[in-house]
């Protein structure tokens, strides 16, 4: 029934992990390339250490700014357990990019629950899944805090958008002193996903 070619990207993580910067760079690149783009995020209470998500949709003409359950083409999880929380949002046959990085939530910190230890296996058995250690990759490229940009690189490559002008997009969103390290992290993230494809 739909006549359009819209792609839906869901970025999820924990408040403070930098999903917003990653989606800002992503949308800057997509807009410059001439796509219609919509992006949606929720502010307020959930930002206080809660689960956060940013939704990005692009194509010739985009209507809804939000992605319904089972409709995301790709799910990028900045934290491991968040990948499984949002798995129902992924389209069957869609792709998961997941950071091998665990942040225990309060029920786990207080000892009431344990951090589930076989999430990656479950993801891999249910969807085309790319696991990466974005913290280590970011560290190796000069700044552990650029984990978000590493994940963005993997996302871009997974969507086949590597030929857009990401250099300009990144420069428009990042302070000049952080540009070089972030460009390295973006490139490293892209190479991780390239290896995955090959």
């Amino acid at each position, binding site marked *: *029934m*739909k*006549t*359009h070619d819209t792609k839906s990207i869901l970025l999820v993580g*924990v*408040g403070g992990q930098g999903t917003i910067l990653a989606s800002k760079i992503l*949308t*800057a690149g997509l*807009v410059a390339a001439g796509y*219609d*783009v*919509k*992006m*949606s*995020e*929720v*502010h*307020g*209470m*959930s*930002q*206080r*250490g*809660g*689960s956060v998500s940013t939704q990005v949709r692009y194509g010739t003409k*985009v*209507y*809804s*700014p*939000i992605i*319904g*359950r*089972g*409709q995301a083409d790709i799910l990028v999880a900045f934290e491991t*357990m*968040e990948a*499984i*929380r949002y*798995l*129902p949002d*992924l389209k*069957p046959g869609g792709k998961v990019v997941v950071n091998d990085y665990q942040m*225990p*939530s*309060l*029920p*786990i*910190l*207080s*000892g*009431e*629950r*344990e*951090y*589930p230890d*076989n*999430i990656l296996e*479950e993801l891999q058995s*249910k*969807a085309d899944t790319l696991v990466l250690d974005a913290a280590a990759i970011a560290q190796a490229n000069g700044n552990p805090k650029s984990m978000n940009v590493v994940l963005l690189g993997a996302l871009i490559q997974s969507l086949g958008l590597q030929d857009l002008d990401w250099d300009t997009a990144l420069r428009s969103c990042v302070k000049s002193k952080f540009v070089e390290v972030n460009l390295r992290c973006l490139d490293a993230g892209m190479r991780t996903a390239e290896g995955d494809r090959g």
Partner: protein
Amino acid sequence: MARQLVTGNEAVARGAYEAGVSFASAYPGTPSTEILENVGTYREITAEWAPNEKVAMEAAIGASMGGVRSMAAMKHVGLNVAADPIFTFAYMGVSGGMVFVSADDPGMHSSQNEQDNRNYAKFMKIPMLEPSDSQEAKDMFRDAFDISEKYDTPVMFRMTTRVCHSKSLVELGERKEFAAIPYVKNRMKNDNVPAVARNLRVKMLERDRRLAAYTNDCPYNFAEYNGSKKIGIVTSGISYQYAKEVFGDSASYLKLGLTNPLPMDMIREFRSNVDTLYVIEELDPFLEEQIRAAGIDCVGKDKIPLVGELNPNIIRKALLDEDVPEILFNRNLIVDRPPTLCAGCPHRGFFYECAKRSDTVMVGDIGCYALGGSEPLNAKDMAICMGAAFSLAHGLDKAFRKSGQDKTIVACMGDSTFFHTGINSLEEVVYNDSHVICCILDNRITGMTGHQENPGTGYSLQGEPATIMDIETIVRSLGIERVRTVNPLHLDDMKAALDWAYREVHEGPVVLITRWPCVLKKLSTEDRREFRPVPAVCTVHHDTCIGCKKCLTTGCPALSFDKYERKVSIDPLQCNGCTVCAQVCPKQAIVKGAKKA
């Protein structure tokens, strides 16, 4: 000019700029907060944080009476606070155009209810515009001022969370200055004593009739006929985007932008051109009830939920009975991740010491400290709306004393909430003499909405220095003598202050002020002088840690417990050395050290 990707809130601010608005006021509240933050970036506009929404609305009304274009912005529940002035201003009409934003929160992402404020526009008999994306938000907001002046009425601009916080592409325009209208005294318009108001009420009904004619010609109400006329959809706001997503070109649309009054002639004509009419709207059957009352048959809330936010899947299921396939997996792998007080949050010390006390009823309020009710602190019984904590506590105290229930009542609210309406609530406690412990959690900023200045912080919205209102001085001036200010991160001091308050409250009202800045606040010069922050981090000596988990009862997200080693660790990235965990450790296993750069 190139198109820019902006949120609905940024777009409204741009619309205000292009319309030549001179004055804007608001009280922060999700999802509306960024409107005034963005208006404040235009130097041509005076943008202010008011102490509450009623004051913001009144200030904007005054500016309109003074002859300039003005606006106010608030979240849906803020309009309840501001309802008093605007209901009457709706009788009086404007001088300079006046538009206010009501940002509703279907789904309650960050709110205590999901009231549908479209009902207000009908109740007030004023025009209402509803944008469905950022381009419309900008254009409609700009044009709302023309409607306001032409029809001599305030205009309600109704948005929802998804329109406020979604980004879409917008073509920007230039500012058109609005020539201020010289002030002329006119009591028959502006002095709403009963004799005047009776006349204005009649005039308002005439205006409503003129608007009912205009709405059928308004360019923001339009029909979109596609190949198929089997299905016709009447919709407005974000629901239009969802409907387009689901039905695409397989349906025709009547897209409504001016939704009060409704263009009933247009709806009737559209109905006659389609086989089945769907009304797609979030929350209340606002459109549907009026359409049905006009004798037009339609499908609406008999299929579409009355509760929560819509999305394309819900519409697809409701109207087409189509399910979207989902990946099935082991759901036991999901552990909740509720929002928590941040590592280093000064509220933690307060709630930790309160939680230990039995026979206490804890009354909360709206702000980050709402999280004091969550596990493991679990230190809250109730909360209702902004500024209510002390007045609720007052009523509880009266009830408990009449019925012989022996409980201590502790009520808490933040600094910004105190200035909002909490100050009135405290007057009630003093004037009608209740024995409650009123706590003002002063973290030197409006926290939950993302750090807006308030009357206590010393700065205005646009960064100008402002008079600092001192909370302790205000409290004492109300006639309360039992007042103490304490650093809540020093648990011994916090405990001593509460012990004192629990003793003193038998004699009359007590006020405790906890004073320490929000851990995320960008400190002002005054803050640095007062609090002298030194970057620090806590670490756990694993040879001393006995794994008793006492520190975990503070609910700090920087702490984690290793079940194999049976030791606690602290995440150095999150920790900022507040030492609350160190103070509760029975073995002194947690020590504070310098933070590495």
